[in-house]
């Protein structure tokens, strides 16, 4: 009689447990990291004997085993996919943002404006208004390049900050993981184990999204895991039983891992996946782009300076540099107590003190020290030395300190140097004017091989023999007489003369040095010609080179986007595989609920029948 009681009671208990587990599954349908629980309804080994009955071995049901639905392989794939996707999700959008910055409203338009202004100035070099447009266009170009350089630097610093915050989060996650591992180790096989394992796995997934990791069961306790960095052998451990490593990251995104084992040496690694991997890759791409931009800006400065130096200003001076990329990065000391700042207002690396410079407020004045610690200048609120001017606005306190680290050649320093239209060299250094009485059609070209400034007259004494005479234009004194060689060349002192075409005896040419006419536009025209590259000299072609930068960067962005889409698809598949094992499907749970409910009711009915039978038996006594 007790058999039916026991069997019905055990079924009732088992299905109540199953219903409870199903309810838990339904309740956690949207809980992140929750693994579905499965109840294993084991047939009972036999109804135990009691005071009222003998033990039986072939009936009953026991619902004792509740298992987390987990597939280690699917979970590992999901974590790897999550790491890869997290990296791609950081890289692609940042590169897209930078590509938009590089493409729209940037230096490309400013460069076109500069070249257009130079072409217009070549048509009216004597017009100060037109020259002023060159100044404005040059300033716009320099400002747009500098803005872009600063934006890239800001983006890089933002990413570095983000990497630091991400590492802080990773350390918090690792500490939480260590705590949970310790709790798991002390939880035994009770009902509290599964929620702890869920929590642990959720933290592991969070960590995997932060930085790529390898997760393995602990050799001594299969409920615990051991986590190492990345997916290659020999990488440092991040979590070992109840101990966590500590992570640090530098401005370039390189990780330093201090392993959990006491006394283990710190290791540095460049993360490859996870958000930190994405940040590291993005920082690398930004640095490369900044370097390319620096090179492009330097080429503009160098090429334009080379052409401009060949020209002469109205005063007859050689054209100076048009652009400068010299500059210093100002770093205030953390211990500064005053509100003063330091601003570099003029910079010329060629003449400024070399190396890192330090400015210290001492006894009410600023003192400048060079890299060797030697004082090179003092000033109350500004310091001016050749090649460098630094102002210190704000209230300074004694002991305040600023360090200027040279970062010459950076695009963010780009400045347009001329401030007056007269500083622009529009004309050529050498002007050759054939005499109006010449009857021949030869052209004379003159080049200087050394210093020479006095105007000369070149006379063709005998066109047949190529005899030419060079006279001082001021006093008519003969300087040299010589014959042209087979190529029409002759040298005299620091001058090299080349005559091409048919000259006539008696023809003469006036050659003037460093005194261009106001309408002389040769240097402006040569600067405007830099819009396209000169294949022989390699000068110019700035626009095309910038487009090459954009095209190369676009290929990187395209690759990053493709990778993002690819990793998303892989993660989608991995999540589906994972969800198939661990996910909660309400229809399945509803079906089970219905099934368990019926079984529970049936067992309850069986218990009721057993009770009625038992009562009938009692009543019959």
């Amino acid at each position: 009689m007790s058999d039916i009681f026991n069997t019905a009671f055990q079924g009732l208990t088992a299905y109540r447990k199953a219903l409870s587990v199903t309810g838990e599954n339904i309740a956690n349908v949207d809980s992140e990291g929750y693994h579905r629980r499965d109840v294993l309804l084991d047939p009972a080994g036999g109804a135990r004997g009691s005071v009222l009955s003998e033990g039986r071995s072939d009936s009953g049901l026991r619902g004792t085993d509740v298992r987390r639905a987990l597939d280690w392989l699917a979970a590992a794939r999901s974590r790897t996919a999550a790491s890869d996707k997290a990296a791609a999700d950081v890289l692609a959008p940042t590169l897209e943002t930078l590509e938009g910055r590089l493409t729209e409203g940037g230096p490309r338009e400013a460069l076109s404006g500069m070249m257009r202004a130079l072409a217009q100035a070549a048509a009216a070099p004597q017009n100060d208004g037109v020259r002023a447009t060159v100044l404005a266009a040059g300033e716009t170009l320099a400002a747009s390049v500098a803005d872009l350089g600063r934006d890239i630097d800001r983006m890089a610093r933002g990413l570095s900050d983000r990497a630091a915050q991400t590492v802080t989060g990773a350390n918090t996650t690792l500490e939480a993981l260590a705590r949970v591992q310790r709790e798991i180790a002390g939880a035994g096989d009770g009902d509290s184990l599964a929620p702890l394992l869920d929590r642990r796995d959720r933290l592991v997934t969070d960590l995997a999204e932060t930085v790529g990791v390898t997760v393995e069961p602990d050799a001594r306790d299969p409920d615990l895991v051991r986590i190492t960095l990345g997916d290659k052998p020999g990488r440092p451990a991040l979590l070992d039983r109840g101990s966590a490593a500590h992570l640090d990251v530098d401005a370039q995104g390189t990780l330093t891992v201090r392993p959990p084992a006491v006394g283990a040496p710190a290791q540095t690694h460049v993360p490859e996946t996870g958000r930190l991997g994405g940040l590291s890759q993005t920082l690398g791409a930004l640095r490369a782009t900044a370097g390319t931009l620096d090179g492009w800006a330097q080429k503009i400065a160098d090429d334009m300076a080379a052409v401009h130096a060949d020209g002469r200003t109205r005063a007859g001076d050689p054209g100076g540099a048009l652009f400068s990329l010299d500059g210093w990065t100002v770093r205030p000391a953390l211990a500064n107590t005053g509100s003063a700042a330091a601003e570099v207002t003029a910079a010329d690396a060629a003449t400024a003190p070399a190396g890192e410079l330090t400015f210290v407020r001492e006894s009410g004045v600023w003192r400048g020290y060079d890299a060797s610690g030697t004082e090179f200048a003092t000033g109350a609120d500004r310091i001016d030395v050749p090649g460098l001017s630094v102002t210190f606005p704000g209230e300074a306190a004694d002991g305040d300190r600023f360090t200027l680290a040279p970062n010459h050649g950076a695009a963010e320093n780009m400045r347009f140097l001329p401030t007056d239209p007269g500083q622009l060299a529009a004309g050529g250094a050498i002007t050759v004017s054939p005499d109006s009485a010449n009857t021949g059609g030869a052209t004379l070209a003159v080049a200087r091989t050394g210093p020479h400034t006095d105007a000369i007259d070149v006379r063709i004494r005998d066109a047949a023999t190529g005899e030419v005479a060079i006279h001082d234009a001021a006093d008519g004194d003969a300087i040299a007489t010589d014959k042209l060689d087979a190529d029409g060349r002759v040298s005299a002192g620091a001058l090299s003369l080349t005559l091409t075409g048919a000259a006539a005896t008696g023809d003469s040419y006036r050659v003037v040095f460093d005194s261009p006419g106001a309408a002389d536009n040769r240097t402006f025209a040569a600067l405007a010609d830099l819009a396209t590259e000169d294949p022989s000299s390699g000068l110019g072609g700035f626009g095309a080179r910038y487009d090459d930068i954009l095209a190369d960067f676009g290929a990187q962005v395209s690759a990053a986007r493709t990778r993002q889409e690819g990793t998303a698809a892989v993660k989608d598949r991995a999540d589906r595989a994972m969800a198939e094992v661990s996910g909660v499907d309400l229809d399945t749970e509803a079906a089970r609920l219905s099934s368990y409910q019926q079984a529970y009711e049936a067992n309850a009915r069986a218990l009721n029948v057993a009770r009625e039978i038992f009562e009938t038996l009692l009543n019959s006594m």
Partner: protein
Amino acid sequence: MTIGNALFAELNIQSFRGLRGEISDLQGRIASGTQDPRASADPLRFVRLSAATEQQDTLGRYADNLRLAGDRLDHADTVLAEANQIAQRLGEIALRSATDSTGDDFRSALAAEVEQLRAALIDVANATDGGGESLFAGLSGVRAPFRESAEGDVAYHGDAAVQRLRTSETRSLQTGVSGAEAFLGVERADGQVGSVFDIVDDLAASIGAHPGARESAFAAEGGLRLSLDPDAGSGPTRLTVEGPDGRAEVAADVAAGSPGALVAAINAATAETGVTASVAPDGASIDLAGAGTISVSRIVQEGARGTGPAAEAVALDAGTPVGAPEALRPLRHDKQAQMDAVDTLQNHFADLRSKVGALGAAAESQGRTVENRQVMIREAVAGLEDLDVAAAITDLRTRLVTLQAAQQSFVKVSGLSLFDYLR
């Protein structure tokens, strides 16, 4: 495959988010009317577009330069046409003045008109373009390159260089002619190159500035003394000597105030002329002697551009001057020489106009080429840059329908639940 409700919802949410993002991008493109300019959107299109844009910028600069060059050349052509009209009037004056019936009064009036025309020519030579810059100053940038000195000489303060502007990948077009070429480079019939203003000055001089110097030849019986203009300076001098045995043209480099070289040249031709020469007692003049009538004529002093006589001559009787010396005009002041010179002037300006016209035509022709290239590039840029609105709208509608269908199917599927059937 059963993936669980949470993932099902998450995947759908991601799908909706992606579709909304694409719709937003597409809507932005439709609003701007342009395709995504970034290289990553379409690398091949970007490369073609950047090349086309670069070409568009370059052609824009060429077009600007051609327009400016064309303007300056048009101005120069207009000014040279005016100069040509002046030269034509000078030719008429030269013709009238060469007529023997022209009286002194009318000759004076003609001389006055020549002076006016000379002033007009100076104005023309200092003409400016639309931007107020001198047309004929070369690269000097001088506002008034031709200035008249107190002595009445017109000097050029510009240079012989010419401004050029880039008008194609391989060509720079000159934007005019220099003042040296336009007003100092008149090539005479004898091959010598002179100034426009010297020709005008010669004409003025020949018309009436020196009425006594109307003859270019002097003849005397037995001997004459020839005094060359000391102001003519040093340089080659030519003259025709005629004596009882014939005539010869002699030439020598004469240093100012030192006629020895010319004396030697005349004596070298004694066999042809029967005339001998010697340096006069004053050391600066030449005494000519011969057995019969001797004459000197057609005096040419290269480099001399003054309006005064080339020389003075006086008959000698036993070495003593007889009567007052007579002024001799230089050959270039001869009537025919004047008409030839003014004719040369007209031809010079006509040639200049032809040259400027040819440059203008080249600018115009190249301008048309550049315009055609600009049209082609604009079309290429538009094809690469402009959005195919019809295709974009169709794409947008497709994506909207997809989004709506996805949303409705999600609602439908997620609305189905076995719990609805549990009692």
